[in-house]
């Protein structure tokens, strides 16, 4: 299939509208007769709602309705994945009402909705709603939550959602018993806020003529929202509920989940028989979008005398927040625990994960989802191991990598890697980054009074979570296939309907390349449609770097069907045997002759079937395919980061960043490179800048961009990127995911570099983010210590 379009940096089709201000985001949509919702949110981390008096607000001119939890008694916001504890018991799954019922469990919890003719009126009137709270002690710190008398949910003892394990404990213990050396680490994976630039928004619409509901929403997966909200929360059948996710301004995971506001506006639109719009203010996003990460981990690795890993043991506490968000339970388990082999041939692995409820915003997937947490702990631990063994950090990795000729490789924690070449990836990154002559640069920096350090990390990722039967047996309550419909129009142009959703990934271009290449068309002749349940047969959406690896294959399968049917039609038109028809560059030819029919002629015949094998074939040229993968795809890579620290202020500047990745077959290298850049920036953000802070009362300290530090242009360097692509064996297109790798591979490389820079001062540990304050404290702490010695 490799022709001119595949692997070509085709300029994006979607850019024209985005660059001219003609994008169509949810908040750009206004429905006739639309009312506006303002949501009153809990100012407390944990409190009983004693009384709500909304009478004054309801009487305000322009106010249409005020709804509380007593008014909106609907189903609970569902959780899409059930994890079982080691003892076989199902996780604790407390209800999550769209509007709080009697108790609020985090700052930002929905308490009351004011709907008015304008947003300003709704907001003004909201101040007249009197809510009498009885504050309760907040549970914030996970470690204390497990012993706290205060319970986030009265029927969840110890605030423990589940206690899960995977791996062979005995084999691991035996290996530790005979280890030459053991390296240990304790670390925190800091809580993050996705902060897609477009705040969430939702418009509920109700058609009185037929009882149909429409929800316009900022979602990465409109069909999933239709299923969850329709079936579980509002009991609206799919046939009466349309969900539209138009242009969406970034997601990074935070727009996967079914949120209360979607249910509230849809439900209210039905109640009031008019459209209801809600748009988050950024400060609302901070307290209502699902957060990410937030793990506390202890890990240790046993080694033989050559530094080869014998066994790995990991204990993790994962914060769930106040309620279970849609996919929260599977993040620290099946997207984290099962990844713990990393790039290494460690023969025995055992891990335990305790998921804990706290009075904080629910935590769910954020770019990488489980895999960054896993990579971070592994790579930090490997650095510690290198120090213990007095080995170069690259060398200890080299000794432990799975070899390129050992694929497919079965890890001890369920996954089976299909392909990879970790040695070459690292060698290439080492060359590109100048790893070997780093000491010269360190010495030069020292002359300028700067502490220079270098860090390295390697990672594997599991993308395109699958197959459905396997994830189902592990607790997933949905399938993880993808659907595509390819419609060849009578005159030969093509529309592709995909169940994936693009919110920055460039599907309209990449998928058009895939289809144009296969059908011998130009990219302009192919239109890609996504984000509307009324148009697309079905879909699971976009997350976990699955769109091309799963959705792209579904398109390819639909194309196979199109071509197969086209061959039948062409055989009839060319009066040849079907088996003699070949399809190439848009033409159906009779093998060995110059007899041919172009795709356009075949499609015209299919829709104007005057000369057509109507006895054997239906008219029309449109095919739908579902694809359920046999395996994940496993991109891998090596990131090298170089920093300079100003010892007087603690400021860390990234002076070089190199990423070499394996994405399998690449369709559009320009788009892939862009995905890598964005991921790295988020990883650097986690490592140096970003963290979500709650105080002991459950107040969100980093509740706006004034305190939550988003990476800006002057915080980052330009990146050096490279690839060593090994086609995926288990993926029909040979592709691997690329959307999350930057955020997965970069944090340990950055922190490794910071620690390396500070190592001459005796610093061996640093938590994320390595803010100027923290770095200064580390430098200063050591200074004090050294002086005391």
């Amino acid at each position, binding site marked *: 299939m490799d022709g001119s379009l595949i692997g070509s940096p085709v300029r994006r089709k979607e850019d024209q509208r985005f660059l001219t201000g*003609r994008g169509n985001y949810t908040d750009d949509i206004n429905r006739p007769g639309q009312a506006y919702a303002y949501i009153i949110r809990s100012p407390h981390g944990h409190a009983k709602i004693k009384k709500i008096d909304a009478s004054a607000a309801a009487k305000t001119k322009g106010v249409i309705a005020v709804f509380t939890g007593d008014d909106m008694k609907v189903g609970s916001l569902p959780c899409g994945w059930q994890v079982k504890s080691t003892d076989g018991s199902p996780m604790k799954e407390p209800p999550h009402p769209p509007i709080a019922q009697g108790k609020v469990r985090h700052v930002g919890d929905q308490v009351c909705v004011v709907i008015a003719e304008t947003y300003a009126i709704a907001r003004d009137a909201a101040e007249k709603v009197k809510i009498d709270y009885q504050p309760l002690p907040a549970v914030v710190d996970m470690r204390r939550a497990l012993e706290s008398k205060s319970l986030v949910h009265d029927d969840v003892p110890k605030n423990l959602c589940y206690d899960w394990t995977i791996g062979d404990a005995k084999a691991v213990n035996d290996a530790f018993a005979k280890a030459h050396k053991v390296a240990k680490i304790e670390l925190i994976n800091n809580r993050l806020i996705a902060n897609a630039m477009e705040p969430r928004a939702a418009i509920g619409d109700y058609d009185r003529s037929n009882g149909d509901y429409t929800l316009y929403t900022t979602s990465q997966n409109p069909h999933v929202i239709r299923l969850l909200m329709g079936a579980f929360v509002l009991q609206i059948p799919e046939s009466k509920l349309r969900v539209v996710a138009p242009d969406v301004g*970034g997601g990074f995971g935070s727009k996967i989940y079914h949120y209360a506001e979607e249910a509230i506006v849809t439900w209210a639109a039905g109640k009031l028989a008019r459209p209801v719009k809600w748009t988050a203010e950024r400060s609302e996003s901070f307290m209502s979008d699902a957060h990410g990460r937030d793990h506390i981990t202890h890990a240790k690795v046993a080694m033989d005398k050559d530094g080869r890993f014998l066994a790995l043991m990991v204990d993790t506490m994962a914060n769930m927040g106040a309620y279970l968000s849609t996919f929260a339970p599977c993040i620290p388990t099946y997207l984290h625990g099962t990844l713990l082999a990393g790039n290494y041939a460690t023969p025995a692995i055992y891990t335990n994960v305790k998921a804990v409820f706290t009075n904080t915003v629910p935590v769910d997937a954020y770019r990488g989802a489980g895999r960054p947490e896993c990579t971070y702990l592994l790579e930090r631990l490997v650095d510690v191991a290198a120090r213990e063994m007095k080995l170069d950090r690259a060398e200890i990795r080299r000794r432990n990598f799975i070899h390129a000729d050992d694929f497919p490789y079965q890890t001890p924690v369920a996954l089976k890697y299909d392909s990879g070449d970790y040695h070459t990836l690292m060698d290439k990154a080492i060359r590109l980054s100048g790893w070997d002559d780093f000491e010269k640069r360190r010495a030069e920096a020292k002359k300028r009074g700067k502490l220079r350090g270098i860090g390295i990390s390697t990672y594997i990722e599991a993308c395109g979570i699958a197959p459905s039967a396997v994830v189902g047996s592990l607790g997933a309550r949905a399938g993880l296939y993808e659907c595509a419909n390819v419609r060849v129009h009578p005159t030969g142009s093509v529309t592709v309907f995909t169940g994936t959703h693009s919110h920055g990934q460039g599907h309209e271009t990449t998928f058009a390349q895939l289809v144009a290449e296969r059908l011998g068309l130009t990219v302009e002749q192919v239109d890609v449609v996504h984000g509307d349940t009324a148009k697309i047969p079905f879909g699971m959406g976009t997350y976990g770097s699955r769109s091309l690896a799963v959705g792209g294959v579904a398109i390819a399968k639909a194309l196979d069907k199109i071509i197969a049917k086209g061959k039948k039609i062409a055989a009839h038109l060319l009066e040849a045997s079907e088996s003699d028809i070949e399809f190439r560059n848009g033409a159906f030819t009779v093998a060995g002759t110059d007899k041919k029919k172009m795709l356009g002629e075949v499609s015209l015949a299919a829709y104007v079937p005057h000369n057509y094998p109507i006895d054997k074939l239906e008219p029309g040229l449109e095919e739908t395919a579902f694809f359920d993968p046999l395996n994940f795809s496993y991109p891998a890579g090596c990131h090298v980061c170089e920093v300079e620290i100003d010892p007087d202020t603690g400021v860390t500047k990234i002076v070089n960043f190199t990423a070499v990745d394996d994405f399998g077959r690449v369709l559009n290298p320009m788009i892939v490179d862009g995905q890598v850049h964005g991921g790295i920036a988020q990883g650097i953000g986690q490592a140096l800048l970003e963290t979500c802070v709650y105080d002991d009362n459950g107040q969100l300290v980093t509740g706006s961009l004034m305190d939550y530090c988003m990476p800006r*242009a002057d915080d980052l360097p330009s990146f050096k990127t490279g690839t060593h692509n090994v086609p995926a064996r288990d993926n029909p297109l040979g592709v691997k995911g690329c959307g999350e790798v930057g955020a997965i591979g970069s944090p340990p490389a950055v922190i490794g570099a910071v620690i390396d820079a500070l190592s001459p001062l005796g610093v061996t540990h640093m938590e994320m983010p390595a803010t100027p304050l923290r770095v200064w404290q580390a430098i200063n702490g050591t200074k004090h210590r050294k002086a005391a010695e």
Partner: protein
Amino acid sequence: MASVTITVNGQKRTADVEPRTLLVQLLRENHGLTGTHVGCDTSQCGACVIHVNGKSVKACTMLAVQADGASVTTIEGLADGATLHPMQEAFRDNHGLQCGFCTPGMVMSAVDLVQHNADPSEQEIRDWLEGNICRCTGYHNIVKSVKAGAAAMRKTKTKKK
């Protein structure tokens, strides 16, 4: 209510608004110019950057009434008919956008930079973009785009002379 008249993208338009209406609301809600976005409520993100009397400002931190009588250019007014502005073209050529949400503000800010500094260095571009946050691109391709856009704008200027 107050009557606000602005010349937006070359057209004179009047609307009656409450004094508390932000300029960005006037543009989006009264004039249907939804290309200017709102990404935050603390004047940090820059998704709403437009030009008022030729200078880049944040339309979320200016009242509509403050703009009465002003000349306003939004992202919708940047292209010359079907021909993209060189900065828009440079963003497309260099993959300087992904989800597109920060893009209008980013482009408007970049055009203002080049008005001041015809040939900005990478560092000058990064410093100038302090008030524009992008969550998708890691800025790498935005910086490339602005550099290319500036070069293209210099060329157009020479041609016109």
